[in-house]
Every structure is written in C-alpha cells, then in structure tokens.
C-alpha cells in the first residue's frame, strides 16, 4: 500500500479521495502488521464473546473497554482519531435511552421518575455491547486497508464471486463517487440548489445517469480485463497465505482474555 496522509482530510467527499479507506489510519504497528485474516477471525470471536456476556456483570464491560483501548494504543492510534466514527450508533442510543421509560416489569424510583428496572438493564446492555462491537469494528477498519481485508476474506474461503465483486468494488468506489461529486459540482455551477422534494426529479435524474455511467464503465472494464486474459480470479498479491503459529497465538491473546472475563462473568452471576 502507498503511504498516505493521516491527518483529518478536509472535504473528503468533494475531492472524492479514498472514500473506501476513510477509516484507515496509516501507522506502523504490530496490529497493522497482523495478517488481515487473523484480524478478521480475532475480531469476530471477540465481538461474539462480548455479546454473550450478561449485562448484569457490569465490570466485565469496563475490562473489555480497557482491553480494546490497549489494542488501539498498540496500533499507535489516538482515541480522538476514531471517536467521530461512533456517531453511527446514534439511532440506537436514542432507542436505548427510551427503554427505561417504555420497558416492562417492576419500576424503580430514580429521582422524580419511575423507570423500568428491566428496561434500565437492557438499555445498559445494548449501549455497552453496541459500543464495544463498534469499537472492535473501528479498530479492524482503522488498522487494515480495504484491499488487505478483501484478501483476508479470500483466504478465509469466502465465495470467489463475492471476493471478485468486492475487489472491483473497492477499485472503483472512488471513481464512481468522484463522478457523483463532479455531477454535483456541475449542477451547482448551473445554479441548482436542492431544497425540498421539488429538487428530487433533478437529483433522481443525476442518480439515473450515475447508474448508466457506472454500468457502462463496468462493461468497459470487463471487456478490457477479458482482453488481458482475466478468467475470474485475480493474481494474489500482498500477504502470504500461511500465517506463523506464533502470530496466531499472539493475536489470540485478545479473544482469550475476553473469554476469561466472559466465563468469570457468567459463573459469578
């Protein structure tokens, strides 16, 4: 991968650069160096164990959080750099906050209001698990480039057609979003300012044009690749197929610790 600027990128959409790697933070660290397939397996195992932990064991979630903060620190990434990404959680935070008010079961008096006890526990459980799961996903995306992740999926025996679609998708995502940004600029240059549903026919027309251009580009790319001998599988680049057992063992430390915490939490409940 080519090294790229790591500061906050202003006007990402308008300039259209590297939409796909927007979460990626280029650093040199042991976490970045781990093979993508190892990271995928470890991330999935970790999230599953976190989700299985009973919410009543509150301490366990703080331990998980501390573990993940440690991993992020090992990746040489500052927390503030990934913090904005947690915004995807907002609709579910709203849902969780409402829960003590609409939940069932016995009520607890908290200040002036009566809150459902079960509702409070589920709100806590949802918030904690969703946040930690998101944290794991963010660390994965921040330390692994898109192409490495696709390579990892390939090594984990993902269906070849899906991998091929993913490959062409990550190659052209910036091309297509650039195209969309150019169309948007062209509309603005002609005095268009979208306000309210009356602008929808124009925007829909742009989107239709974007589809036609994407489709035609797909045809051209397909023919060009066929003429260069493409048969449905790309030559494998990047990381080797075999991973040293020591690497697996080191990476498995995280899910192992999480498993220990999870088991303790289950047994002490």
């Amino acid at each position, binding site marked *: 991968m080519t090294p790229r600027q790591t500061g906050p990128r202003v006007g990402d959409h308008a300039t259209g650069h590297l939409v796909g790697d927007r979460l990626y933070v280029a650093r040199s660290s042991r976490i970045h160096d781990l093979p993508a397939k190892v990271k995928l397996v470890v991330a999935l195992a970790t999230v599953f164990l976190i989700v299985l932990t009973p919410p009543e064991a509150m301490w366990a979630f703080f331990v998980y959080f501390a573990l993940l903060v440690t991993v992020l620190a090992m990746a040489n990434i500052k927390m503030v750099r990934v913090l904005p990404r947690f915004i995807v959680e907002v609709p579910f935070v709203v849902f969780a906050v409402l829960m003590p008010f609409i939940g069932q079961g016995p009520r607890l008096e908290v200040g002036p209001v009566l809150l459902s006890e079960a509702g409070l526990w589920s709100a806590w459980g949802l918030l904690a698990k969703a946040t930690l799961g998101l944290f794991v996903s963010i660390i994965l995306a921040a330390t692994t480039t898109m192409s490495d992740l696709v390579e990892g999926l390939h090594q984990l025996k993902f269906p070849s*057609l899906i991998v091929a679609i993913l490959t062409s998708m990550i190659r052209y995502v910036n091309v297509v979003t650039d195209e969309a940004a150019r169309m948007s600029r062209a*509309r603005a240059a002609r005095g268009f300012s979208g306000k309210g549903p009356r602008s929808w026919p124009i925007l829909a027309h742009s989107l239709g044009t974007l589809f036609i251009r994407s489709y035609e580009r797909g045809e051209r790319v397909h023919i060009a690749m066929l003429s260069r001998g493409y048969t449905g599988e790309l030559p494998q680049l990047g990381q080797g197929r075999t991973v040293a057992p020591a690497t697996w063992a080191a990476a498995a430390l995280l899910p192992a610790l999480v498993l220990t915490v999870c088991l303790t939490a289950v047994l002490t409940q």
Partner: protein
Amino acid sequence: MNLGPVSAYSRRASLLRHTPANEGLKERRHLVHVPDGFIDVPVSLAAAGVSTAVVAVCLQRTRKTMSDAAAPMAGLVAVFVFAAQMFNFPVGAGTSGHMIGAALAVILIGPYAGVVAVSVVVIVQALFFADGGLTALGLNVLNLAILTALVAWPAFRLVVRVFGTGKAAVMVGAGIAGFVSVLAAAAGFVMEFAVGGTAAVDTGAVAVAMLGVHTLIGAIEGVITALVVGAILSVRPDLVTGVVDLRKAERAQRSEEAVLS
C-alpha cells in the same frame, strides 16, 4: 497572505463545496442497520445461516446469467448502490432522506444479482465502515438485501404485468416496490426483535414505532426509486432488467398482430 492562483482556486472550490447542492455525498445512517448485541446470539446465528444459504442460491443463479469474469460489472453496480445510499435528497427544514436502494437494484439488474449486489454493499459497510455489527451481519443482509428483494421484485413485476410496461406503469411499480421494500426491512427487524430481542420492551410498541417511522422513510424511498427508474427508462430502457423481457414480448406480439392485420 499568499493569494496566488492556486490558493484562489482552492478557495473558490471550498466555497462551492459548501453549497447545499454540493453536499451530494454523505454517509447514510439507517435505523435498520442492527449493531452488535441488539438481537441475541442464537437468532443472529440463525439469520446468518439463512442469509448465507439465500445469498449462495442467488450467487448460483447469477452465475447462470453472468460468468465469474463478469464480476467487474456486478462490482460497479454494487458501487452504484453504495453511492446511491450516500446521495442526499433534501426533505426540507434542513433534513434529508437517503435510499436503501435494494428495490432499485433488483429492478435494474434482476432479483438474484440485486440480492448479491446489496449483500456486498452491506458487507462492505460492516467491515470497512463499522456500520452494522459484525455479529449482526447476517441480520443486516437478511433485512436489507433479502427481505427487501423478496417483496420488491414480486410487487414490481405484478404492477408491470397488470398495467403494462409504459413509463407511467413502470414508475408506479418501482414506487410501490421501493415503499414495500422498506416496510419489509422494518418488519424483518421487528420479527427478529420479537424472537431474539435482548431488551425488555413490549414487541407491540417496537412494531408500532418501527413501522410508523418506516412508512415515512418508505414513502421517500418509493418516490426516489420511481424517479430514478423513470430517468433510466427514458435513456437506456435496455438497462431496466425488470421490464426488458416483458417489453420484448410486447414488441413481438405487436409485430405479430401487424403481420396478421
């Protein structure tokens, strides 16, 4: 201050960037993108199983019409769905709507390829954008790619079979398909919540809230889907897979009638 030609240009460019029309691409956030821990593990795993099986069948069917080597085309359609989801449609009062794009995808490239394309988009969002939980990936593929297509395609085909393949009928069909696809995704979420919800909330209340909100979101999706399909139909009707075969049959019948008369 150095105001050479380059910085003058970039200043102008940044001014342009802030016009509302130019906020074209933003990330969409959707309530039906389930995070980790919202639905319990057994139901998540069951959904992952169902999704894997359905996507496998769709892959098989897609392969019949498209060889592995045609992946670049499917990839670019997936990129288009991805970009369409980031496309802002201003609703007024500073808010804007986004599409899921599943109904649009199945109408444009057919049900099987459509499911594959939208599934890939959901996978990309979970893995590269941390949008939707890793353990909830099966649930999200089920809701956003499979259930949407499962109702959108029959709804669209029913309308164009009954009312013909004129532009108005196709747009109405696309609108209905877009509307029901969003409701199907929301209903899928409610069902999953009823079976495997980890929250102690009355399922009825969740159903009312989800379906209520998504009636509105679905209406927006329907209108946009209709407009986009209409726009493509007037320029490249051959790219609207959902009507290509019917239009061909109609043409054949017309020419047959012309010969007979």
